[in-house]
């Protein structure tokens, strides 16, 4: 009967358990940072688009029927999600800071206000709205958030850059620490490298043993870290789904789409590759001193 071959490297020891923990923790942090950054990106995108897409149309010296007709026509535009005339109570709420609650004088000539939510990615509807006002002979004007939105967009871009920098820094740190920890764990196996070398094993054979060992170890640890990041993300998504209003808008738009899954899959692979490369370089460097 053929004998089963024991792996040439011992199954594991305390040093590798420490390496497993380090890789797992770093992958958790890196994956979570990457997912959060994507969420921040998506939130910034949505927030910016919403601000840019909000338009207010002020219509003076006209009646409600004509104003409603204008809103009806505007809402039919392809790039407009919604267009409606604010009702009296909404106008009163709007003017409350000036007149106090219920303090709006009777008969005050308040212009009709049309709020428009448009998809500015498709096109700015301001000119078309002005065309509707002219067509219905309404003395009105369109007030957009372009100037304000530009400032917001600048702020969001800074936010994105910061988030990206954090992910890049954390990823680079993770790779460096994994490589260093692998190097340290492997140095403790120097005796095995020597015995294999002196038994006539080729450098590639010895390096291959350690590469496989540390690749699998880092891959498993990285998967553990990625799964933990997935669970935390799911928790945030679940918590975020119960938030409403401004709170909901400001929370990072964490979700699990295709690219999030890609991030979770790529993280352990990157960790594995870093460990594998470190193992290869360490073994070859240690053999370099020998004939």
């Amino acid at each position: 009967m053929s004998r089963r071959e024991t792996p040439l490297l011992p199954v594991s020891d305390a040093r590798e358990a420490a390496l497993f923990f380090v890789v797992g923790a770093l992958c958790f942090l890196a994956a979570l940072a990457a997912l959060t950054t994507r969420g921040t990106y998506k939130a910034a995108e949505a927030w910016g688009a919403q601000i840019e897409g909000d338009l207010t149309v002020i219509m003076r010296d006209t009646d409600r029927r004509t104003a409603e007709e204008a809103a009806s026509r505007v809402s039919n535009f392809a790039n407009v999600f919604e267009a409606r005339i604010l009702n009296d109570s909404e106008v009163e709420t709007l003017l409350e800071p000036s007149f106090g609650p219920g303090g709006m004088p009777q008969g005050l000539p308040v212009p009709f206000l049309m709020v428009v939510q448009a998809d500015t990615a498709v096109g700015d509807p301001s000119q078309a709205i002005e065309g509707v006002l002219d067509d219905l002979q309404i003395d009105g004007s369109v007030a957009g958030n372009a100037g304000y939105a530009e400032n917001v967009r600048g702020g969001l871009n800074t936010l994105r850059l910061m988030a990206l920098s954090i992910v890049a820094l954390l990823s680079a740190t993770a790779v460096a620490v994994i490589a260093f920890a692998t190097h340290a764990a492997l140095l403790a196996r120097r005796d095995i490298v020597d015995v294999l070398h002196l038994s006539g094993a080729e450098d590639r054979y010895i390096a291959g043993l350690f590469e496989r060992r540390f690749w699998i170890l880092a891959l498993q640890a990285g998967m553990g870290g990625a799964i933990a990041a997935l669970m935390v993300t799911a928790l945030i998504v679940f918590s975020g789904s119960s938030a409403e209003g401004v709170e909901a808008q400001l929370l990072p738009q964490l979700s699990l789409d295709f690219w999030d899954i890609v991030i979770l899959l790529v993280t352990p692979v990157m960790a594995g590759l870093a460990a594998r490369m470190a193992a290869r370089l360490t073994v070859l460097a240690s053999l370099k001193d020998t004939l």
Partner: protein
Amino acid sequence: MSRYRPDLSDEPAVRLDGVSLTYERTGEVLSEIDLVLRQGSFTFLTGPSGAGKSSLLKLMYLAPAPTRGGIRLFGRQTFELKRKQLAALRRRIGVVFQEFRLLDHLTAFENVALPLRVSGQKPDAYQNEVIDLLRWVGLGERVDALTPSLSGGEQQRVAIARALINKPDLLIADEPTGNVDPEMGQKIMRLFAELNKRVGTTILIATHDLDLIREFEAPVLRLSNGMLVRDVEYGAAE
């Protein structure tokens, strides 16, 4: 005592030309060594502790590269060889290390089979051979024992079996009988002598055991302060 000068009349198994070895921490441990081991020779290497015996053996089994000088093994200049060729050359050398260098997580069988395994052979091909060799060194009942469960003497015998399993052209042994009883020591030395006579294996044994040296009447090389000198004290030099 005169400096040893080798006989260069034929292509030797081992030839060292002006070899020096310097360690960063301890400085020069071997100085300008000229040495020839003819193919099929049986030689003892002796000298006081710290004279550089183990360092000289290491150079011969291609562990460190010499700081200066050249090493020719079986007619091939080692510094001219590619690493793959060096690995192949190393497989022609059997080494019995003073500190055994067995892998703790492997059994006696697996430790002995290591040189065959790393050269790509499968257990089916070498199983009987390894077991026979382990039986011969008196470890037939300890084939599947893990290294830590073996006594010092048993580990020594496993190390010897591992050095012999590849039927090496050159056998280098550092104090091979140091941890075994006299009877086993005699048995091991007789095996070495038999390998030398019948197979033509070139053998170099580093030892402090003067009785052993006298008994086998083989040439003796003596190291002193990192230099190789001829020593006829034991009546066995060429």
